[in-house]
């Protein structure tokens, strides 16, 4: 059986302590800059906070993974190198990277620290994954959310590293590391600046009838009726009118979250080593609720019991959930 480690998000030191206390095997977090893909205002860690976080996690047997999972634009790579230097000095257990240059720097400078390949690298074939393993010593790949469980099982047989899959949280388009939708409207890049739909460009407008419009950089990307559930203001989840659908429809993806709680036994059987929970931008309440639920479920499965999986629908985007491509390629 695989280790079935639970990899949990933390956007603040308090969230990190919450994740550790709720039973995380490892917590992932990032610095307050463009070196990670949740570069949101008021979120993330200063180096001093990270030092305390490492101490807190290690004292309780939890690993700390540092996300350096964005792509340095030309001439700005120093910021990523400095972040790696700081992380190494503070004793993080692994770096989560997407860019080959960053992977190469860490592999040469800190060969003793594990490298995990971020979902942002979008490595989905055995050939691509092996390339990262052979050239940078990558120990684990976080798979893009485009693969079915039989495909994951097949990949596992053909690669020399561990596999991590997302099991819960935000479910964006299946073009991780390559999406430029935000860039198109706001000029900021998800992949290089670390932020999709920057809050400074988002506005919610309440209409007289109780409807609400979400706008990004002045463009309305959705309008919700008074009773309708909402989602994140991301372009991929906007509702658009087209000549063939003048009433407006979700052209790419709808507000919905991934929830693979029912597929955990199959994923373990397929050889997945680690389960990732998305949501560094979410609250301690979310972290506590989701980590506890999955801790209990994984422990039940490991002990040979049937998992009693808590209902997490209240925490999902749009209060809807899916098993996405893990269940069927027909998803979207």
């Amino acid at each position, binding site marked *: 059986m695989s280790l079935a480690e639970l990899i949990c998000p933390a*956007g*603040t*030191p*308090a*969230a990190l*302590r*919450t994740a550790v206390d709720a039973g995380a095997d490892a917590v992932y977090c990032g610095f307050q800059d463009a070196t990670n893909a949740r570069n*949101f*205002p*008021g*979120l993330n860690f*200063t180096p001093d906070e990270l030092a305390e976080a490492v101490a807190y996690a290690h004292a309780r047997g939890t690993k700390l993974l540092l996300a350096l999972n964005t792509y340095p634009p030309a001439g700005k790579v120093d910021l990523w190198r400095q972040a790696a230097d700081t992380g190494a000095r503070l004793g993080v257990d692994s770096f989560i990277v997407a860019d080959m240059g960053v992977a190469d720097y860490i592999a040469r400078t800190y060969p003793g620290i594990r490298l995990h390949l971020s979902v942002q690298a979008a490595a989905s074939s055995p050939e691509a994954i092996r390339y990262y393993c052979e050239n940078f010593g990558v120990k684990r790949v976080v798979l893009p959310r485009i693969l079915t469980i039989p495909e994951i099982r097949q990949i596992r047989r053909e690669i020399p590293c561990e596999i991590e899959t997302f099991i819960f949280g935000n479910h964006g388009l299946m073009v991780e590391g390559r999406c430029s939708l935000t860039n198109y409207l706001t000029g900021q890049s998800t992949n290089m600046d670390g932020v999709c739909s*920057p*809050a*400074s460009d*988002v*506005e*919610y*407008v*309440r209409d007289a009838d109780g409807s*609400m419009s979400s706008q990004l950089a002045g463009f309305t990307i959705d309008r*919700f009726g*008074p*009773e*309708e*559930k*909402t*989602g*994140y203001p991301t372009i991929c989840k906007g509702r658009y009118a087209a000549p063939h659908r003048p009433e407006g429809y979700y052209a790419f993806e709808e*507000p919905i979250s991934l929830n693979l709680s029912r597929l955990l036994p199959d994923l373990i059987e397929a050889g997945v080593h680690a389960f990732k929970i998305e949501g560094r*931008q*979410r*609250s*301690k*309440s*979310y972290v*506590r*609720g*989701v980590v506890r*639920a999955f801790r209990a479920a994984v422990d039940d499965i490991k002990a040979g019991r049937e998992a009693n999986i*808590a*209902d*997490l*629908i*209240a*925490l*999902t*985007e*749009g*209060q809807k959930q899916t098993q996405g491509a893990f269940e069927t390629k027909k998803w979207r």
Partner: protein
Amino acid sequence: MTPTSESTVRLRPGEGAIARLACLVLQPALTRVVRRVAARHPSLFARLGPHQTTDFLIDPVELPFALHLRPDPQALVFRAVPRESAPQAGATIRGRFLLLLELIDAEQDGDAAFFSRDLEVSGDTEAVVRLRNALDDMDGSLAEEASAMFGAPGRAVLARLRRAYPDATKPREYA
């Protein structure tokens, strides 16, 4: 800041007077609470960044007044304001009172409350996100901390509030 136009606020008879009285009675307590929180959680201000000087309007829908917060460490403002003379805020956060309290205390998730439409935000979204993240990084319960400042009567008021709004305090499905 300019007052909100009267036409946008509908008052029930006598509500204006009650609101003004409630604001007057509450003000000393609010000032004590916000000073204490600022002193005990200084890291809160760093997460607010440039929005330390933003005017936030926290609008508990079922109460007759709103709360005006300007989290400027040099000149903290936290005051109850009758809704009809509420300032034009940089950012507004609207929801049931106990939900707002539970969001601050991390008993509820802000995104989930937003998705379900229990929470409404308008104005400067970055300011709201920063405030949310700053408050979420505080350990412990702000409600307990604040009520404890006023001894047994304070704790009794909090317990009574929670009884009065059982819905908001009931653990959600995920708890």
